[in-house]
C-alpha cells in the first residue's frame, strides 16, 4: 500500500495550497473583474468606501469560504453514508435528505413566518433527519431495501414526494417565492452571518464524523463480525447518522440542494488512500472542499457574465462518473 500512504501525505500537503489558490481565484474571477492588488489591499487594509473591497468582503470571500465548507461537509457525509451502508450509491443527494430539509423549512415558513436564521438552520437539520430517516426506515422495512437500486429508487421517490408536498403547501399558502429564494442559487448570495452561525454546528458534526470514522472500518466487515469483535454497532450507527444529519443539514441550509459531491468524492478518496475510513473520511472532506469551489469557479465561466447554477457543473462531472460507477459496479442482485 505504498501508493496509498504516499497519497495520504500528498493530499494533506497539497490541500492547503490548493485551497488557498482556489480562494484567490474565486475572489478574482466573477462578473466584475477585480485585480490581485485590490484583493490584497482589501484583506489587510480594508476600506469601507471602496466598492471593490465591499464586494470582496460581503460576497466573494463568503462565497469562496462557503463553497469550501459545503463541499467538505457533503463529501464527509457521503463517505460516512457509503461506509455505514456499504452501498456505493449512498450519498446525501440520493437519500432525500435535502428534500426533507426543504419540506420542513416550508412548514416553518408557513407556521412561524418570523423564524430567524438560527431556527432555519436547526429546522433544516431536522428536515435532513426526517428525509434520511424516511428513506432509511423504509429501506429497512422493505425486502432488500439496502441494495443500491432499491435505495436509489427510494431516495428519488421519497425526495419527489417530500418536495411535492412542500410545493403543495407553498402553493396553498402562497409562499413559493420565499421558499425558492431560501433554497435556490444560494451559493452566489452566501450570507456571511449564516456561515458564522453554521460553524459551531459544523464543528460538532465534523468531530462526530471523525469519531465515527474510527469505528466504521470494523462495521464495514458486516454487523455480525463487528458485534463479535465487541463493537456496539448501534452506537457507531447512531453517531454516524447524527454526523450525517448535522453536516448535510448545515450544507442544505447554506446552499440548497447540491448533488453529486457526496456521491463521487468518497469514491475518489477511496481510490487515493484506500478503504480505511480513518483516512477516507477526512480525505473526502479535503477533496470535497477543493472540488466544490472549483465547480463554483467553472460555473461563473460557463455562461459568462451570467451565473450558472452550481448543480449544472457538479452534474457535468457527476453524471459521467455515476455512469462509470454503474458500469463497473452494477446494481447488485435486487431491483
Amino acid at each position: 500500500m505504498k501508493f496509498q500512504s504516499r497519497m495520504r501525505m500528498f493530499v494533506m500537503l497539497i490541500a492547503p495550497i490548493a485551497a488557498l489558490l482556489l480562494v484567490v481565484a474565486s475572489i478574482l474571477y466573477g462578473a466584475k473583474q477585480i485585480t490581485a492588488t485590490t484583493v490584497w489591499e482589501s484583506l489587510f487594509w480594508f476600506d469601507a468606501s471602496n466598492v471593490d473591497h465591499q464586494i470582496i468582503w460581503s460576497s466573494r470571500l463568503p462565497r469562496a469560504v462557503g463553497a469550501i465548507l459545503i463541499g467538505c461537509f457533503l463529501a464527509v457525509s457521503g463517505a460516512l453514508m457509503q461506509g455505514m451502508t456499504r452501498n456505493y450509491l449512498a450519498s446525501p443527494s440520493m437519500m432525500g435528505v435535502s428534500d426533507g430539509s426543504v419540506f420542513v423549512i416550508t412548514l416553518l415558513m408557513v407556521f412561524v413566518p418570523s423564524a430567524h436564521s438560527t431556527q432555519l438552520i436547526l429546522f433544516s437539520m431536522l428536515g435532513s433527519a426526517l428525509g434520511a430517516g424516511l428513506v432509511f426506515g423504509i429501506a429497512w422495512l422493505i425486502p432488500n431495501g439496502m441494495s443500491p437500486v432499491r435505495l436509489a429508487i427510494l431516495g428519488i421517490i421519497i425526495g419527489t414526494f417530500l418536495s411535492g408536498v412542500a410545493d403543495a403547501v407553498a402553493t396553498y399558502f402562497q409562499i413559493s417565492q420565499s421558499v425558492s429564494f431560501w433554497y435556490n442559487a444560494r451559493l452566489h448570495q452566501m450570507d456571511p452571518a449564516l456561515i458564522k452561525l453554521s460553524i459551531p454546528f459544523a464543528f460538532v458534526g465534523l468531530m462526530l464524523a471523525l469519531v465515527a470514522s474510527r469505528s466504521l472500518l470494523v462495521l464495514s466487515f458486516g454487523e455480525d463480525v463487528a458485534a463479535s469483535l465487541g463493537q456496539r454497532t448501534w452506537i457507531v450507527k447512531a453517531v454516524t447518522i447524527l454526523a450525517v444529519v448535522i453536516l448535510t443539514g448545515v450544507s442544505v441550509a447554506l446552499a440548497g440542494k447540491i448533488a453529486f459531491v457526496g456521491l463521487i468524492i468518497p469514491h475518489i478518496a477511496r481510490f487515493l488512500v484506500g478503504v480505511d475510513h480513518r483516512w477516507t473520511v477526512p480525505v473526502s472532506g479535503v477533496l470535497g472542499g477543493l472540488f466544490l469551489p472549483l465547480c463554483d469557479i467553472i460555473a461563473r465561466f460557463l455562461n459568462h457574465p451570467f451565473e450558472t447554477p452550481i448543480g449544472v457543473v457538479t452534474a457535468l462531472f457527476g453524471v459521467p462518473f455515476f455512469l462509470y460507477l454503474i458500469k463497473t459496479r452494477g446494481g447488485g442482485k435486487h431491483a
Partner: protein
Amino acid sequence: MPKLSNARFWTVLGSSLVLIVIVAYLSVTNGTFDLSVLDVCKTLLRIDPLPEHDLVVFEFRLPRLVLGALIGCALGTAGAVIQGVTRNGLADPGILGINAGAGMAVVLFMFLFQGVLSTTSWWSVLSMPLFGLIGGLIATAVIYLFATQNGRLDAQRLILVGIAIASGFGAITMYLSLKMNPRDFEMAVVWLSGSIHSANWKFVVMMLPWFLLVPVIWFRSHILDLFQMERDSVRGLGVSVERETNILLLCSIGLVSASVAVSGSIGFVGLIAPHLARRLIGWQHRQIIPISGVIGMAIVMSGDLIGRSVFAPAELAVGIVISIIGVPYYVYLLMRTKK
C-alpha cells in the same frame, strides 16, 4: 383481432369509464366560474349559446380535459409496454430518464427558436413532439449503451442508468432554460413543472397523430405476454425478439415524447396505471394495455381536477399532485415485492 370475452375486463373498463365521466363532469362544471350541467349541455349542443359560456367551455375547460385524457392514456399505455418489455415492475418512463431526455430536447427546441416561437403557430406546435421524440430516443440509446452487458439488458442497471441520465438531462435543461430570454423562460418553467395549465386545441391536435401508435402496440400485445418468459425460450418460438422489442419500445417512446412535449414531465402515471391494471385484470397484455390507458386517463384527469380545485385560486401542477398520491402507493408496492 384478439377476442375479449372476459367479463372482468369489461367490468373494469366500464367502471373506469364511469369514473372518467364523473371526473369530466366535475371538471367542466367546477372552477372559478361555476356552470350548471344545463349550461354545459346547452353550450355543447349549441342551444342559444352565451359567448361567456362558450369561452369557458370551449377555450379553457374542454381542451384541458381532453388533453389530460390523451396524456394519461399515452403515459399509461407506454408504461405498460415498458414494464412488459423490461420485465421490471419498477420501470417507468420517468424513472428511466425518457421523460428527461424528451424534456431536454423540447427545451432545446424552445431555446433554438426563441423569440420566433409561439404556442399558437402550427409549425412549432407540431414539431415540438418530434424534437421530444429525438430526445427520448437519445435517452433510450444511452440507457441501452450503459445498461447492456454481454448483449443483455440488465434490469437492475437499467434503473440506475435511468436515474443518472435523468439528472444529466435535467442539468442540461436547467442550463438551457437559463440562457433563454425571459418570456420563453417563463414558458419553459411553467411547462417543466408537468402542468396542463396552458392546454389548447392545437396541443390536442398535436397529440392525436401519435395515437396511431396505440393499435400498433395493441396488435403486438401477445408478444409482451411471451416476453415474460426467458428471452431464449421466446426466440425458440420463432419470435424475433430484438425487432419486436425495438418496435414496442419505439412506439412507447413516441407516446411518452408526445406527452412530454405538451405537458412537461408527469411522473408515476406510467408506473401506477399498469400496476393497477395487472391487479385488477391479471396478466394478459391485450387486456392490460387498454386498461392501463384508461386508468392513466382517469389518474391524470383526477389529478388535474384536484390540483386546480383544492388549491384554488392558486393551481398545483398535475405532475405534483400525482407524485404526492403516487409515491405512497409505490412504496406500498415495494413493500409487497417478494424478491
